């Protein structure tokens, strides 16, 4: 800010800053209040801590599980499956979208299948995958990929098709081929759509991995949740859910950084 900023402008900026601080304060205050209320209710017996757990019990089981090294193992498995799931789902989805853009006939043939597959809850196929692929990580990955691939195809293809046809004409006036059109105009135009697909896929892939882990029940946070609920260790269940929330927030952040890097690279 330079010296000749007017007093009213300074006041405006200060008010803006103040408001920002208040928003951050209330965001944390809500969380703090919720945890406090939870802890107090559990301590006073308003809710049964055996069924509802409590923040302090979660911290205790977190320390317990961490000391055995188990928690990191389960987190690692879930993160690995999720990242691999949405990465493969996105790559496969973009690949199929490219194919369908390239061949409009194929696109028209595939259209009804895509629409039906899109509205079908993909997790319903998880038990079938377990029968086909086996009770292992392969099935979990298959569910994770399937949950994200259809949405990716539809969103990215839509991005490809929404490029102004006049831009195609522009490339045609330079005597460009379809390949040149794709790499010079269509693909870079759709980079934001691809990044959006990646963001959506983080969440979807988590859903796929959770359902897979529930069913396969060998390792991962999903396993911890089902196992914990079966043996009435609700502390484990609650802890796993909280960790999941943190993980998804973290992965989403990572995608935002990736997006920035990709957009810079495009330039």
């Amino acid at each position: 800010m330079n010296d000749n900023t007017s007093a009213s402008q300074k006041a405006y900026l200060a008010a803006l800053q103040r408001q920002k601080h208040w928003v951050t304060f209330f965001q944390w205050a809500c969380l703090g209040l919720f945890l406090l209320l939870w802890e107090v209710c559990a301590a006073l017996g308003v809710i049964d801590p055996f069924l509802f757990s409590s923040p302090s019990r979660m911290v205790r089981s977190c320390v317990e599980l961490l000391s055995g090294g188990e928690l990191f193992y389960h987190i690692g498995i879930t993160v690995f499956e999720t990242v691999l799931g949405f990465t493969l789902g996105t790559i496969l989805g973009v690949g199929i979208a490219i194919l369908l853009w390239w061949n409009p006939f194929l696109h028209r043939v595939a259209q009804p299948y895509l629409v039906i597959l899109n509205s079908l809850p993909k997790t319903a196929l998880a038990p079938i995958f377990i029968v086909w692929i086996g009770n292992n990580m392969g099935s979990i990955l298959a569910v994770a990929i399937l949950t994200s691939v259809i949405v990716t195809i539809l969103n990215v293809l839509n991005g490809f098709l929404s490029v102004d046809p006049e831009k195609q004409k522009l490339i045609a006036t330079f005597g460009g081929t379809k390949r040149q059109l794709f790499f010079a105009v269509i693909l870079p135009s759709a980079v934001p759509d691809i990044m959006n697909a990646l963001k959506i896929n983080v969440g979807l892939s988590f859903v796929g991995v959770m359902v897979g882990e529930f069913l396969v029940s060998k390792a991962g946070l999903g396993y911890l949740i089902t196992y914990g609920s079966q043996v009435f260790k609700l502390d484990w269940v609650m802890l796993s859910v909280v960790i999941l929330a943190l993980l998804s927030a973290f992965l989403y952040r990572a995608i935002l950084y990736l997006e920035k890097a990709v957009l810079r690279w495009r330039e």
Partner: protein
Amino acid sequence: MEAIVRLHGLGLDYHSAQGETRAVEEVSFAVYPGELVSLVGPSGCGKSTILSAIAGLLPPSRGRVELAEGIRVGYMLQKDHLLEWRTIFRNACLGLEIAKKLNATTKQEVWALLEKYGLADFAFRKPSELSGGMRQRAALIRTLALKPDVLLLDEPFSALDYQTRLHAADEVTGIIRSEQKTAILVTHDISEAIACSDRVLVLSKRPAVLKNTYPIQLDGAKTPFQARESADFHCYFNQIWKDLDYHE
């Protein structure tokens, strides 16, 4: 003088599920080197279709398009279509890149054009940082970089607001004149056609036929801006207006 572009009874039809549309009935005309010719006509009369046929983007349904041997045709579209993620310099190189002619020499030529037409300072800016007129100039340089002999201008100013549009028309015609290019300008704006060109061809509504030809002679007017001030300007305007017969 030998014509650089000649249309022999060009006719164009469109096919769609709803039926066949006759866009252009029969149009014949010739354009000579160094000339700036305008095609005016009511909206949807097939003006742009004629340009597409000249550029070879659309096969004629009837008749033919004859281009002088070895000439290159450049096309300029209604919107600038600069790619937002490329700098102005890289946008100006797009045509060369697609035509696989991008090398040190042609890059140098693009630089020279950017410098000549006042865009050198903006070479490494993004299109979004430029005004509408500057963007249109950048688009023209992208076309000129391929050294076309004939420029086809498809309503290149219609996406601009009125003031920018007058300026851009002034600039673009200035550039075309100074580069000694031949140009065919398609427009629905009568005053733009008169102000910019040596000859105005009036087309009927669809299916298009050639209704009239006006060689434009405005005494002392060197730029489209001055042309609009000229006394004869309004005579031409009124005649073409009558030809177009908007009340029909």
